[in-house]
């Protein structure tokens, strides 16, 4: 147990603490250059930032899919840097990639089964729990995921990740590529799932909508934390609005 006293109102220890993370794909090129983040149980945390800021890379590094060169990632106090994704799944982390996040030639039900591959004995219980959150998945359980629309696929991807009853769910741009109406549904869904007690870290390009629903947010720019605060604080910060939310916000600044 780490005795970490922060200004947070809830004394519960954070589930996930990322500290000064350095990560990248090619040696010599760091994409993430000292980014930090923490999530308390039950929290909905958002990471926003311009295209190419490294948001997806940040997520992948947390999930063991991108090489980490420095800093630490702690899950319930234990360092998880260098652990394989299958190990992290066993420890209660779930991850939904930004793209290609379903098994297209498998049915919805089979997609969910793959999510629970490590704990197959819990199938009936978890299937009921997840389809209670996402009834669409039960109604269309025999449909192949490849035949679904983008929004429906996003639900399959979410459902697959929720099957293990994760301690923390990493969502990479759940609204990406969706029509405006579907985007609204997507944010609504993330909120509902969080309201059921699922701890979520969400990466979003749609910064405005994201900050409106999250408890706390981080602005990532060029691989570093530019700003951090509650969703409301960030929405009220003129600098954040000007650089990342306004019509003038562009891809990159120095």
């Amino acid at each position, binding site marked *: 147990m780490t005795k970490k006293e922060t200004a947070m109102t809830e004394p519960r220890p954070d589930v996930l603490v990322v500290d000064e993370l350095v990560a990248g794909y090619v040696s010599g090129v760091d994409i993430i250059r000292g980014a930090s983040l923490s999530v308390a149980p039950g929290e909905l945390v958002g990471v926003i930032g311009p295209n190419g800021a490294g948001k997806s890379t940040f997520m992948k590094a947390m999930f063991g*899919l991108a090489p980490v060169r420095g800093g630490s990632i702690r899950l319930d106090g234990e360092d998880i840097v260098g652990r394989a994704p299958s190990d992290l799944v066993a420890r209660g982390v779930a991850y939904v*990639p930004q793209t290609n996040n379903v098994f297209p030639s498998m049915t919805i039900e089979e997609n969910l089964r793959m999510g629970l*591959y490590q704990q197959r004995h819990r199938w009936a219980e978890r299937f009921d729990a997840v389809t209670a959150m996402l009834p669409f998945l039960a109604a269309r359980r025999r449909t192949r995921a*490849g035949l679904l629309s983008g929004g429906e696929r996003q639900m399959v991807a979410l459902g697959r990740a929720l099957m293990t009853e994760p301690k923390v769910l990493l969502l990479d741009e759940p609204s990406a590529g969706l029509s405006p109406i579907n985007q609204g549904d997507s944010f609504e869904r993330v909120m509902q799932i969080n309201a059921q007690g699922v701890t979520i870290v969400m990466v979003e390009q749609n910064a405005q909508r994201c900050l409106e629903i999250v408890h706390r947010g981080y602005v990532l720019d060029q691989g570093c934390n530019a700003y951090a605060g509650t969703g409301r604080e960030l929405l009220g910060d003129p600098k954040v609005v000007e650089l990342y939310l306004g019509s003038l916000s562009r891809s990159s600044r120095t």
Partner: protein
Amino acid sequence: MPDLRNRPGLGVAPLVLGGTTALLMLGWAVGANAPETSVLSEFPQALVDGIKFGLIVATGAIGLSLIFGTTKMINFAHGELITLGAIVAWYFQSIGLPLWLAALVAVVAGAGFGGALELGLWRPLRKRRTGLFQLLIISLGLSLAVRHIYLIVFGGASKAYSAFRVQDSWNFWGVSMTPRDLGIMVTAVLVVSGTAWMIHSTPIGQAMRAVADNRDLAEASGISVKRVILVVWMMGSGLAAVGGVLLGLDGSVSWDMGFAILMVVFAAVILGGLGKSNGALVGALAIGLVSQLSTLFSPPELRIFWALLALMVVLLVRPQGILGSRNATRIG
């Protein structure tokens, strides 16, 4: 109990069974009513031979397709995995083991060799991020090397299994069939349907399809992709060994028998739809039927030509193969 209705792929089984039965009935109807000397009287025999050949090819094609599906690698050494089964079984029956036991040893040896190849060669190469084209060339080299090891060890002559060498054949409705033919077909049907059941209904089979579908997501779901690929190599090689034994039983065993049939196995996989295990079965049956039926009107030497011609025609119409899906990895 899991409800199996509408499982993808399971719909193929009734299609194959129904189609084959319908063809056989048609064959017998035609054969029974055709005049003794006409070409049509040979039809039932060609049909049965085609199905037999198709089933043998299928045992090789399913393994090749599974390996391609999960690793995206084209294994040109698959023919040698087929030959290995035939040779190992030949050796053990020649020292007195009953053929079924020799075949079992061959399958275990095949699976072991496949697993060893994965662990000792393919996995280290993948870890070093060797490109798929390079892997293809390496498999060609491996095929050549292993084939010539067979030549040295087994010799250049063809040898037959001592059991079932000469048998009385049964005759019915214009088809003559030996107990050996029946044994080959029954074994192939059991092995192929057992494999299809495994792929569709067991957790490891579903994991194989998941890895084939989206490898990264399989990894992110907590599936050990490494383990799945190892199982696929062992299974695919074991199936190839079965194919080798059946092929040797149907004809004879030789050092390059697998290489000789490799083109047909590839054709079956591509015709059915790359990476679809049911596709391999459908493709193999189609290739078997076309090649044997062609002997009704053209010299038997050209039967593989007709089969490959059929492949080209089908691919012109359906580039993804009979069961393949064009948009398997639709992005978005």
